[in-house]
Structures are given as structure tokens and as C-alpha cells.
């Protein structure tokens, strides 16, 4: 069978079930392409020989009732995988081998999928370009020298470059949706509490959420169905009625009310983003949706709020990296000196910056002025969405304020880097589900994405709207295989 790696997940599953393709053939095809794609720098850890063994084992005794029968896939290196190195893109975890498995990845293996390896990401998921990774930046398959977005940049590049049929990422402020948008792929951030956080290297616990990334909405729905589960090992996992997202997927969205928030028309937004948004509105109308103008008045306060809340939580979560129980340790003259040198040498610049911000806003005398203030504004942001959802079923916005930028372009200006997440961050603060779907190209031919934000726990609705619009948009990703050796 030719061109295995360009197939969608659904067709791979069909071909495996109909015995036109073995798991071993599929696995070897993705490994072969991954081996020719070193220049993208997507993998931190490859587990190829084990993957072939597992695929052979699957083929000997196939179980076609599973949702991901013998499907090879790579995952973001933020998910703990038992006995397989998990680095979170950091020097401090360079040699960390978990003795347990994250719930989300366990759910995936339980449905028959096979691990190919671990994908590069920004260090501790802190970044929007994959440039903060200790293991180097990732190339966007769309064009040489272009960032793949971040923090799930290895994940987005691997799906877009067809090194894995599907993958999972994590999204704290846009880390699934922004890279999906930059690479012409689909990425869903589920409702907070939908996917277990157990075994995911923690960044900002009240915002972190795992989610699926794929070539199309249908594949995304199937993977969401697999990874979302109630889990007692995560104290914020929520026990709600989960849909069978792929089976219940429908393009019938007639009469759905879709809100257009005027505050997302930000100053200096490129015309091509504005045009894309307008086209998106037309596509939604073509699908039979009703378009309603809405207001989310506190939108411009979301990023400043995020840059207090997320670093505060990160400074607390990352306190555990002290060189004692696991991870990198630097030599020190005494215990305190050892801690300070370990953290100074083990963390990269962006992580140190965020720990410092977090420590400062939580420190004595500043807590009320910053952290408490941010929590209050977070409430106002959530209230905006609650109010809007009295009138609409979902909200349509651009995913990002620009297409992918050049490697190095924003590296030295943290604030301009943070502005990338202007449309995605409010969703995390309010804990809502949102998807990014590719919807067009800019004049350079780089992909642009649209974001559909739903009500809490209404992943099905978000997926349905995305599914219907995807059909109308008819997006084709322009991949030239420039990196293949």
C-alpha cells in the first residue's frame, strides 16, 4: 500500500480492520518517514524498535474492537510514560525515567495504539514557538526556518509533517490551538476536568489540559473520545456524561447560534486575519448557523491575568525540582548552594523568568496587589463568557493574531511572544473547550486557523461546528517535503 503516512487516522483504522494494512506496515512507514525527517527535530526520544515489536505482537493477535487498533503514534514529551524517558523539554529532567504512566497515555494504549516516541516541546510547556526547549527548536513542515508554534510544537510538526497520524498535546494558554493553527492541523483543548492531569508534568494546574491533535476534525473527535475519562487520581477530574464524540459527530448545525465577540478585533490585527474571520462567518452561515454579535468586555485583561496566574502556579509546581529526588543535580558547597545552582543550571531562561514572576507575585506584600487581583479579574473574564452563553451556543474567533513567524524573530522580546496567545488564553482562564481548525492561507502560503469556543462540557457541539465548517472550508495543507532526506 502506497502512501501510508498521508492517510488520515480513520482510513488507517479501516485499512487495518480490513486487513489491507498490518500494524507493522503502518508502524514501519511512520518510522521510515520519521527517520528521513531528522531536520524537523520533532523527536526528543525515539522508541522505534519497541514500536515494531508491539506492532508485530498486535498483528499476531489483532483485536479490531479497539478504537485505535495497532495505530502507531508519538506523544508530547510532557506525558509521563513508564520506563520511557520523559523530559518536558528541560535539562533538569534530561534523564528522568518515570516509573508510572499518565492516565491519558494509558487510555490510548488501552485502545490498542503503539508509542513511536516522545515529541519535542517548549521547556515545561512555557513558550509559543518551541524555541525554549533544551533539545533545540523544531522546524515547521510548512517552510524552512519557521516556528511550528508552541508549546506543543513537536506535536504539531509531527502531525503536519505526517510523522504520526495523530498526537496529543497540552494546552495551558493556547499550546495546542496555536501550534495547530501554525501548521494547518486541527487541535482541541477540552473543558478543564475532561482529561486527567495525572502523570502530566505540571505547569499551571488550574489551566493545564491535555487534548488531541490531528489532520482533521473526525480524527480529533475519535482521539478525544479515547483520552477523556473521569479519573480519581486527579482531584480536579470531573465526572460528567462524556459523549461518544466520533460516533455522535454530525455536520447538522442548522440554527446553532454562533457569537462574534467584537473585542477580538484587536489593534494592529493583520488584514488577512480579519478577512479570514469574515470568511469564517460566511462559512458558518452557509452551514445554517445564526450569527450574533456579542461582547466579552474583559478580553484585553486576559493576557495580563494569565501572566500572573500561570507563573504563580508554575513557581509553586516547579519548586519540586531541587536536585534531590530526581532530575539534574549541580554540585554545591552546601545544601542551599546545591539547590540554587541546580535550578540555575537546570532551567532555561524562560522558565527561570516565569518562576521569578510567580515568586514575586506570591511574595509577602505583593500577593493582594497581583495574585488576588488576577483571580478577581479571572472571575470577570469567566462572567463575560457565562453572560455570552445565555445568547449563543458557541463563539467564533481567529486562533492567532498572525501566521507562523520565523525562528528567532520574537525570541528576545517576551511580551511580543506572549501576545501570540491573545485569542486562546481567555478560554483557559474560563476552563472552556475550544478547537482550532485550518481555514485558509496568508499571502506567503502559511496556514491560518479559526477557533470555535464552546460551553463547558460541550465538546460535542464544538466538534460538530468544526466538522461542518471544515467541510465548507475544504482546506488543503501545502506540504512540500522540503526536509526529507
Amino acid at each position: 500500500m502506497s502512501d501510508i503516512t498521508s492517510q488520515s487516522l480513520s482510513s488507517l483504522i479501516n485499512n487495518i480492520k480490513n486487513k489491507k494494512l498490518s500494524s507493522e506496515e503502518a508502524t514501519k512507514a511512520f518510522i521510515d518517514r520519521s527517520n528521513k525527517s531528522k531536520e524537523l527535530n520533532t523527536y526528543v526520544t525515539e522508541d522505534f524498535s519497541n514500536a515494531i515489536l508491539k506492532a508485530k505482537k498486535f498483528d499476531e493477535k489483532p483485536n479490531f474492537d479497539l478504537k485505535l487498533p495497532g495505530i502507531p503514534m508519538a506523544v508530547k514529551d510532557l506525558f509521563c510514560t513508564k520506563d520511557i524517558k520523559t523530559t518536558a523539554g528541560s535539562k533538569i529532567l534530561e534523564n528522568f525515567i518515570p516509573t508510572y504512566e499518565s492516565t491519558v497515555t494509558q487510555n490510548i494504549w488501552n485502545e490498542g495504539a503503539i508509542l513511536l516516541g516522545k515529541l519535542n516541546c517548549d521547556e515545561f510547556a512555557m513558550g509559543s514557538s518551541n524555541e525554549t526547549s533544551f533539545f533545540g527548536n523544531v522546524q515547521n513542515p510548512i517552510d524552512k526556518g519557521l516556528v511550528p508554534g508552541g508549546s506543543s510544537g513537536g506535536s504539531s510538526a509531527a502531525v503536519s509533517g505526517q510523522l504520526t497520524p495523530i498526537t496529543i498535546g497540552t494546552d495551558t494558554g493556547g499550546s495546542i490551538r496555536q501550534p495547530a493553527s501554525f501548521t494547518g492541523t486541527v487541535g482541541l483543548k477540552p473543558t478543564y476536568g475532561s482529561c486527567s492531569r495525572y502523570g502530566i508534568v505540571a505547569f499551571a494546574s488550574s489551566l493545564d489540559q491535555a487534548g488531541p491533535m490531528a489532520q482533521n476534525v473526525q480524527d480529533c473527535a475519535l482521539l478525544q473520545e479515547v483520552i477523556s475519562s473521569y479519573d480519581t487520581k486527579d482531584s480536579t477530574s470531573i465526572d460528567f456524561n462524556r459523549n461518544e464524540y466520533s460516533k455522535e459527530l454530525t455536520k447538522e448545525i442548522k440554527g446553532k447560534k454562533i457569537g462574534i465577540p467584537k473585542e477580538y478585533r484587536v489593534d494592529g490585527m493583520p488584514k488577512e486575519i480579519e478577512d479570514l474571520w469574515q470568511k469564517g462567518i460566511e462559512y458558518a452561515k452557509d452551514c445554517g448557523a445564526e450569527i450574533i454579535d456579542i461582547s466579552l468586555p474583559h478580553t484585553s485583561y486576559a493576557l495580563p491575568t494569565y501572566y500572573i496566574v500561570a507563573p504563580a502556579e508554575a513557581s509553586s509546581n516547579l519548586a519540586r525540582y531541587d536536585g534531590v529526588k530526581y532530575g539534574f543535580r549541580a554540585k554545591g558547597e552546601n545544601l542551599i548552594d546545591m539547590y540554587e545552582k541546580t535550578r540555575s543550571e537546570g532551567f532555561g531562561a524562560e522558565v527561570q523568568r516565569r518562576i521569578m514572576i510567580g515568586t514575586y507575585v506570591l511574595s509577602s506584600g505583593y500577593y493582594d496587589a497581583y495574585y488576588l487581583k488576577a483571580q478577581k479579574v479571572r472571575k470577570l473574564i469567566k462572567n463575560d463568557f457565562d453572560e455570552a452563553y445565555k445568547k449563543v451556543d458557541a463563539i467564533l474567533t481567529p486562533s492567532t493574531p498572525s501566521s507562523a513567524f520565523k525562528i528567532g524573530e520574537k525570541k528576545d522580546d517576551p511580551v511580543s511572544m506572549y501576545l501570540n496567545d491573545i485569542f486562546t488564553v481567555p478560554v483557559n482562564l474560563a476552563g472552556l473547550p475550544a478547537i482550532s481548525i485550518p481555514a485558509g492561507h496568508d499571502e506567503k502560503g502559511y496556514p491560518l486557523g479559526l477557533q470555535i469556543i464552546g460551553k463547558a462540557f460541550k465538546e460535542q457541539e464544538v466538534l460538530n461546528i468544526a466538522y461542518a465548517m471544515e467541510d465548507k472550508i475544504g482546506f488543503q495543507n501545502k506540504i512540500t517535503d522540503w526536509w526529507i532526506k
Partner: protein
Amino acid sequence: MNIDLKTIKHISKLSRISVDEKKAEKLAGDLNSIFKFIEKLNELKTDKVEPLTSVAETTLRLRSDEVKSENIRDQIIKNSPEENEDFFVVPKVVE
């Protein structure tokens, strides 16, 4: 708000990250531009707003206090940066 080198040294101590002069200067510049951006929140009056601590509107669950994993000392020690059979090792803390 101006974050000076003294403040950077203070935060560096609190967060247990050593910084030299050069790094402190760079951090002061970065943090000042980030805090300038954050100050925008002061435009909002929030006296009567309840802070939002979690979007998951559930009360924390209780569970029975049972031992679920036994004899996992080897697993726990396994990733320890300094080799030792049974313990985590740190530099000497008591003279």
C-alpha cells in the same frame, strides 16, 4: 513599579535560583517590561468581585485512607541523582 537589582536578588533567593550580575540585569529588564504589561489590571475596580480559584466547580473528594502501592521504594529511589542503596543523598547539613 520598578524592579531593581536588589529586588531581583531577593526574588532569586526566594526562588532558589542563583543569578550573577549580568543575569540579574537582563532579568530586571525583562521583568520590568512584563510587569508594565501586567499593570493594565489596575484599570479595573475589583473591590466587590469574588476571586476565582478554580473553574472546576466541585468540592474536593474524600477517599478512604488505604495503602494502594506497597514495596515501591526501589521505584522511588531509582531516579535519584546520587547513587545510594536506600536513601536520597544531600550535601552535609549538620556540622
